[in-house]
């Protein structure tokens, strides 16, 4: 028998189980317990965050109206090659579908969807459905063309062939001012024809950047003051900063309407002081929008900067001064770099919140100050066009993610501190 090599002694616990296994088991239980504590929050985030965003992504390409209500036409159009007009079988399928749509009262829904692509089609579809329901038998091609000449136009059929599919690119393309023409080529939509969204996105960006810069300029000195005052004074001033923060958004915005309107407090004061001789147009303008948004966003920028400043020991600047640095040099080289994480956090928060603003520009801004959320809200509440609203949301989300990636490349995501 060969001598066994001495195996390393396995450390065992009192009940004979190897220590390593016991340790692993305890670790696993600890991790499970930690996960159980976090699980409700994770579930909450998945439900309120991931699910709506996924639904929005789905809705921006979902195209159920025609696929569900023109089933025979959808099948028949698969065989159409796109040149000239479709043959009799497709016309017959359309006639059957429209007759059924008239009976089920879904013709208006079909017309509404086609109306997005070709204005004026809604009434034609409803009229065609009503008339074709009375026609007993084919051939349908001539009958349909006689009811409305649009059925002899290749563009109508090209649009129909695209729109009967369950998935569509129409909404996403419209959100970036593009569309497919009759030959399925990408073309730009001119601004006179509704191609306004790229301009609105740019406007949203510009307003957000302006508001972020304005809040930064106001918040930094204020945060410095709050951080360097003795606690009692600082607490009192902090309450003054937070009090408007705790007031409802709509109340604050309405207060700005009262202040900025043509016969409001600001204009009356300026007239009385003799600074101007005619009231200024402060409300329903870009100025009013920026001022109101800055006021509302100020605490969001201020608080992260304040919390970071609070952690900076005043002895750092004193040490720099004692080593011979001038006041500005000491501030710029010793104090300011330590506040950058707070600035990064505050600015990021304000910028992303400002991108989604809707109520404030709607109340104090003019028609050329409306941001992208206004249009998304319009499509939902006035038209019930979920596709368009979702598409605008998707483009905004993509733009925000890209900007955030750019931001983290510049600033570094690990450098963002909320306090």
């Amino acid at each position, binding site marked *: 028998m060969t001598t066994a090599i001495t195996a390393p002694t396995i450390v065992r616990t009192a009940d004979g189980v190897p220590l390593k296994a016991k340790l692993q088991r305890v670790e696993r239980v600890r991790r499970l317990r930690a996960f159980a504590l976090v699980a409700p929050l994770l579930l909450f985030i998945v439900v309120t965050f991931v699910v709506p965003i996924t639904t929005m992504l789905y809705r921006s390409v979902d195209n159920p109206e025609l696929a569900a209500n023109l089933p025979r036409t959808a099948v028949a159009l698969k065989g159409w090659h796109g040149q000239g007009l479709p043959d009799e079988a497709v016309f017959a399928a359309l006639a059957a579908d429209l007759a059924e749509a008239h009976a089920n009262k879904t013709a208006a829904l079909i017309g509404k969807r086609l109306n997005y692509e070709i204005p004026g089609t809604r009434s034609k579809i409803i009229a065609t459905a009503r008339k074709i329901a009375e026609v007993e038998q084919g051939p349908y091609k001539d009958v349909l063309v006689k009811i409305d000449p649009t059925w002899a136009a290749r563009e109508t059929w090209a649009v129909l062939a695209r729109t009967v599919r369950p998935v569509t690119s129409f909404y996403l393309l419209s959100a970036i001012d593009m569309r497919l023409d009759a030959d399925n080529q990408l073309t730009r939509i001119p601004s006179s024809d509704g191609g306004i969204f790229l301009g609105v996105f740019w406007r949203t960006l510009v307003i957000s950047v302006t508001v972020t810069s304005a809040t930064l300029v106001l918040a930094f000195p204020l945060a410095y003051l709050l951080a360097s005052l003795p606690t009692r004074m600082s607490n009192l001033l902090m309450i003054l900063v937070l009090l408007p923060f705790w007031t409802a958004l709509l109340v604050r915005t309405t207060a700005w309407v009262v202040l900025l309107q043509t016969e409001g407090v600001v204009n009356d004061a300026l007239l009385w002081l003799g600074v101007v001789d005619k009231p200024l147009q402060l409300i329903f303008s870009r100025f009013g929008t920026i001022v109101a948004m800055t006021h509302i966003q100020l605490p969001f920028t201020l608080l992260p900067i304040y919390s970071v400043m609070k952690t900076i020991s005043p002895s750092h600047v004193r040490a720099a001064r004692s080593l011979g640095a001038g006041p500005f040099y000491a501030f710029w080289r010793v104090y300011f770099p330590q506040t950058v994480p707070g600035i990064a956090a505050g600015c990021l928060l304000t910028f992303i919140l400002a991108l989604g603003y809707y109520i404030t520009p709607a109340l104090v801004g003019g028609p050329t100050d409306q941001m992208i959320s206004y249009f998304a809200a319009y499509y939902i509440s*006035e038209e019930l066009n979920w596709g368009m609203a979702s598409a605008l949301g998707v483009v905004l989300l993509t733009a925000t993610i890209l900007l955030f990636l750019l931001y983290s490349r510049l600033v570094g995501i690990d450098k963002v501190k909320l306090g």
Partner: protein
Amino acid sequence: MTIKTGLGLSGLLLAGITAGAFADAAPAAAQDSLTIVSWGGAYSDSQREAYYKPFAKDFGVKVTEEEYNGEIAKIRAMVEAGDVTWDAVDVDTRTVLGGCDEGIFETIDYSKLGQPKEKFVPGAAEECGIGTIVYSTIIAYDANRLNPGPTSIKDLFDLEKFPGKRALQKDPFVNLEWALVADGVAAADVYGALNTPEGVDRAFKKLDTIKSQVVWWEAGAQPPQLLADGEVVITSAWNGRIQNAVKNEGKNFKIVWDAQMPDFDFWAIPKGPKNLDLSYKFIAYASDPKVMANQSKYIAYGPTHTDAIPHIAPEVLADLPTNPENLKTALTLDSRFWADHRDELEKRFNAWLAQ
């Protein structure tokens, strides 16, 4: 506190919150209730006095009011989701026609209303709605600020004679017709022109001439407020709101009846309501001529039932848009045009506004 106690407490809290949430959703008491939706402000006040309060008293039904600004999308959403919480909605003509096409309103069974269709003013007895008032979109001004004031619709577009801001509804409805009339199109040819792209372009071009001076309102209560604040000198409005400000708030506003656009408001029932019979009961009550005549006491809107007119006092009749004096240069609404072209004209209007 140990982890065990912490977990136990949070479990209890979660259970408590869930129980509370479900307790709210439990069905209410045995009394019937009705949710009626209208446009808010002085108009809803008049409906409350003339209809909701007497109906609740006579029939022992609880009436809940809600407001909206005419967004057909909200009704569409409810019917599509199959969860209709509105039992009766006050809608305008283009909504009742467009909504009927889409099948989102119940077809009115006139036998249940107890009123024959013929007794209603022509245009007020629709397939999916029964007319309740005749209102009109007009322009108004503050006589304290503009003296002499505008006398015709052309003055709305005349920035030299009447400088200052104007307020218009944030909707192409009526604004396009007024633009064409002010540009010289005869009242009878307005819709013929709007049916062509050149006509629509012409209307937008005319609106361009005052665009920079316009404040856009969305809620019916805004125009008298904007006039009172001095924010605008001329505003478009629904006549009853202006007359309410004159009567109840002592304002010196004057209405210009030239090119007024009379229209009906209808009671409509969204498809699939919780209690169809109760909805019909309410609408039947509100369509009774004596009850309908009562509403004109509270707001200057006319009745749609021909038998209601004798019940209205002559001085009230004089203020109504249907007074022949006021109807002399009125426009005639083509609601079928708006039912068909609403979506694309609104899209064009929003694009025009955003630039």
